[in-house]
């Protein structure tokens, strides 16, 4: 007959152990009891759910099909409140009784709720379960004042999540510095500064006395008399093991359920695993040691008693983008016989500290840059003798060639600390399962599915090993600054970086190149809606002199001619200028305007002055033109006023930058004379309404634009076009035309996020567009205030007299 194995706790430890048991030969009939109603999910990623980076479905570890496929009974929503060891039964609060042959306790821990006056008020939460996260998400939003009690890992991740949801967040921390269990004072100070630069208020040495308010929380009172407003409170004051159930059953329990190196408890048929356990006086709060426990326990319980659990080296990583923290081992430098190696760079916010004894690493703290945590963890785990490495402990010699950094790692090296996946295991997955993408690797080995910080290392390993390595869709911008554009937007926003050089200094190689610098220039402009630090050295020459460089080094000048409408006076001026400056070629372009080609750089500002017209942005990734047809103004078929509408559209969007060039057109009827159906944005007039179409192209490839929406009034049409325009600016990848953009996102999503979005979202897009517009101006006005020798060559000063070029003595 099969043995009945009952598992109490449907969490990360319990289910992982069951997975390990399934790998052994066993004859268990397994039932898992869990008081949460969800299937097993990745608790670590609750922070990402709160931050809006992950959906609930993304963090499921074992879906219901897994339980079925493995003949596991899942009793979800049942809380066990009694264990009867004499009769070998367990009892649920709902009144059912189950008999077991072997019992596995994996009840985890609970958030500690300190006895603060008013802690039961509505709006005061802890952060432990998916339900907690959902409640917090429901209540958070712009204008909400949130207070987080506790500046440890959990509290800070909760704070960042709430802040990303729009809350105004204050962290109250009792200790002298943040994460005081993992960081020394200096490290805590560096972290505090990082978080403050992200917009989170941090108050240390703050002791909470009471939560005030009638029914729902309204404030937090401190013992020093201060009171802070709060509509939402998260208490993250630590965790305590759920060991009460075992204690009342008569098992040996200290703080946690006492287990030996085989994960056996004081009763021969009862085992325990996870955060509810205590081993050698050690308690647990991270998954890495729990996985070790699970593997050992699976062996013990299936009759393969042998492997032992030996405790662990604590290692912590804070999962807040832009506030990297890593800490492992014992970082106390006051102990006898230890040496301390430190690096502090306040400008970059980087702090690193290594604690050594006899040339071996005992502890490490990294703040601001935790990119090489693996190296330190390895030294720590293996007790590596570092005598030969003393000269470059903090800055390793650069890898000689691509792939060498991963090649240098031993096969036993743990790549994914969360899930205990070694380099060898990854290579094996590549060879036996033909894994060639990160997604497949996650599926086969679980690597990079925990906190995700090893994803980069997994990628480079795959690249080196997998013959059919396929780059993930999310490509990094450039080798100079190896982040995806989405990450860069987030970095620029959250780190308040307003200039290209700052981004390159902090997140890149400090120099950049012609690929990344224009992209970064675009990103800082869009993120800060024009309120950025313009850096011309990061722009292509076209954007330094506002003209299009030609194959002979001369430039072309295309004045703006909104809607392709001009006047005799304007044409006369253009003719005069062309003659005065001996312009070699005058050409009517495909964009309904006139191009003066072959102009010398030093003539540019004079030509603009003589023309007195605006820049047509024919040289940049920005708004090119709005072509129009005659429309109802003169055309026999015209149903809408294409010219007035097109001119107005151009006026609203001109001078702005876009991920790639943006061409628009407005036509008065579906005969489409100005080809609106092959433009990035087109307005097509019909009887009593406008169709707005987007994503069209008539270049190397031809793509008919997709319908965004049909609206009645001209004002609505202009608004719909503006919504799409700003949405493309904010979400397009630099150098992505709208026709690729709409295909990547899908028109359903585009419509949902623009014309069908809530009023608040639409207003947000329009407001940000307006702010950018308010700060934008005609680039050619720079002629009045040129930069030193922007256009003309330097003239060598006669007799060694050197002048600084200023506005007054500029050659204009």
């Amino acid at each position, binding site marked *: 007959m099969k043995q009945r194995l009952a598992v109490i706790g449907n969490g990360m430890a319990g289910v992982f152990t069951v997975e390990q048991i399934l790998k052994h030969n066993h004859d268990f009939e397994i039932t898992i009891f869990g008081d949460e109603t969800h299937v097993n999910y990745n608790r670590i990623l609750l922070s990402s759910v709160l931050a809006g980076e992950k959906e609930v479905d993304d963090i499921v570890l074992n879906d219901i099909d897994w339980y079925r496929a493995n003949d596991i009974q899942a009793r979800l929503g049942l809380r066990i409140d009694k264990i009867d060891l004499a009769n070998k039964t367990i009892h649920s609060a709902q009144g059912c009784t189950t008999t077991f042959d072997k019992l596995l306790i994996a009840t985890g821990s609970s958030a500690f709720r300190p006895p603060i006056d008013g802690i039961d008020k509505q709006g005061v939460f802890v952060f432990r379960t998916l339900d907690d996260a959902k409640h917090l998400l429901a209540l958070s939003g712009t204008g909400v004042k949130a207070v987080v009690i506790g500046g440890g890992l959990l509290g800070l991740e909760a704070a960042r999540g709430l802040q990303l949801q729009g809350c105004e967040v204050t962290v109250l921390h009792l200790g002298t510095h943040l994460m005081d269990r993992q960081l020394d004072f200096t490290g805590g100070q560096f972290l505090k500064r990082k978080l403050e630069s992200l917009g989170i208020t941090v108050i240390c040495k703050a002791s909470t006395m009471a939560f005030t308010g009638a029914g729902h929380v309204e404030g937090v009172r401190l013992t020093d008399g201060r009171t802070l407003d709060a509509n939402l409170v998260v208490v993250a004051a630590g965790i305590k093991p759920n060991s009460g159930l075992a204690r009342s059953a008569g098992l040996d329990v200290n703080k946690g359920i006492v287990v030996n190196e085989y994960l056996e408890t004081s009763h021969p048929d009862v085992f325990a695993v996870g955060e509810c356990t205590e081993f050698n006086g050690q308690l647990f709060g991270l998954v890495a040691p729990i996985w070790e426990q699970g593997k050992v326990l699976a062996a013990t319980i299936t009759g393969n008693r042998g492997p032992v659990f030996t405790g662990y080296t604590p290692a912590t990583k804070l999962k807040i983008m832009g506030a990297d923290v890593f800490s492992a081992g014992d970082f106390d430098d006051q102990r006898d016989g230890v040496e301390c190696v430190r690096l502090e760079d306040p400008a970059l916010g980087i702090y690193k500290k290594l604690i050594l004894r006899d040339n071996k690493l005992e502890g490490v703290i990294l703040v601001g840059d935790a990119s090489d945590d693996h190296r330190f963890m390895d030294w720590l785990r293996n007790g590596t003798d570092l005598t030969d490495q003393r000269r470059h402990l903090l800055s390793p010699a650069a890898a000689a060639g691509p792939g060498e950094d991963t090649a240098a790692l031993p096969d036993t090296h743990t790549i994914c600390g969360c899930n205990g996946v070694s380099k060898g295991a990854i290579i094996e997955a590549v060879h036996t399962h033909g894994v060639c993408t990160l997604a497949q690797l996650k599926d086969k080995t679980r690597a990079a599915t925990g906190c995700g910080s090893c994803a980069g290392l997994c990628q480079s390993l795959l690249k080196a090993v997998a013959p059919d390595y396929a780059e993930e869709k999310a490509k990094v911008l450039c080798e100079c600054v190896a982040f995806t554009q989405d990450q860069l937007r987030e970095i620029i926003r959250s780190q308040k970086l307003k200039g290209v050089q700052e981004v390159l200094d902090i997140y890149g190689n400090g120099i950049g190149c012609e690929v990344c*610098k224009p992209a970064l220039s675009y990103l800082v402009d869009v993120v800060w809606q024009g309120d950025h630090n313009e850096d011309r050295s990061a722009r292509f020459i076209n954007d330094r002199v506002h003209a299009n460089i030609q194959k002979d080094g001369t430039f072309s000048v295309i004045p703006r001619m909104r809607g392709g409408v001009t006047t005799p006076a304007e044409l006369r001026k253009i003719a005069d200028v062309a003659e005065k400056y001996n312009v070699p070629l005058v050409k009517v372009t495909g964009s309904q305007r006139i191009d003066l080609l072959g102009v010398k750089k030093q003539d540019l500002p004079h030509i603009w002055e003589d023309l007195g017209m605006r820049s047509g942005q024919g040289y940049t990734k920005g708004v090119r033109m709005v072509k129009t047809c005659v429309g109802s103004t003169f055309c026999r078929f015209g149903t809408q006023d294409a010219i007035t509408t097109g001119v107005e559209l151009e006026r609203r969007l001109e001078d702005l930058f876009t991920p790639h060039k943006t061409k628009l057109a407005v036509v008065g009827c579906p005969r489409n004379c100005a080809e609106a159906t092959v433009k990035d944005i087109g307005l097509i007039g019909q009887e009593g309404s406008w169709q707005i179409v987007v994503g069209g192209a008539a270049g190397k490839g031809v793509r008919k634009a997709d319908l965004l929406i049909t609206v009645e009034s001209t004002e609505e049409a202009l608004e719909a076009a503006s919504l799409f325009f700003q949405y493309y600016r904010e979400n397009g990848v630099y150098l992505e035309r709208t026709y690729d953009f709409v295909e990547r996102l899908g028109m359903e999503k585009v419509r949902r996020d623009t014309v069908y979005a809530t009023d608040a979202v639409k207003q947000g897009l329009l407001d940000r567009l307006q702010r950018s517009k308010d700060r934008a101006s005609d680039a050619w006005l720079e002629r009045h205030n040129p930069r030193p020798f922007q256009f003309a*060559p330097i003239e060598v000063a006669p007799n060694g007299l*050197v002048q600084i*070029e200023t506005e007054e003595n500029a050659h204009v």
Partner: protein
Amino acid sequence: MSNPQWVPITAIENLPLNEGRSLHWQGLDIALFNLGARVVAVENKCPHQHGPLVDGMVSNVEGRVTVTCPLHTRRICLDTGQIIKPATAGPCVRSFPAKIEAGVVLLQKGRSEAEAA
């Protein structure tokens, strides 16, 4: 051989950081770059198809400071004058001795570095 003489060219303020500025000098077209710690002067002519290097972007190839020609993105090492990306064995750009002293950019009268070498 004539005595090399350093000639003041312009105030360093006239060379924005990492941007090129052009200059006619000894019958040649020169591109000057202010790289922060130093200035470099090269002939303003890409060996590939004579693009104006002065209009290029300062960038890097594996840690070496380069300028990228605006016409066909050849990357030219500002220290050796060689096109290093795409790697070719073609001719180098001529470079000229340049330095900053008391906030003034100086060029040496006489020959280019290539000829002097």
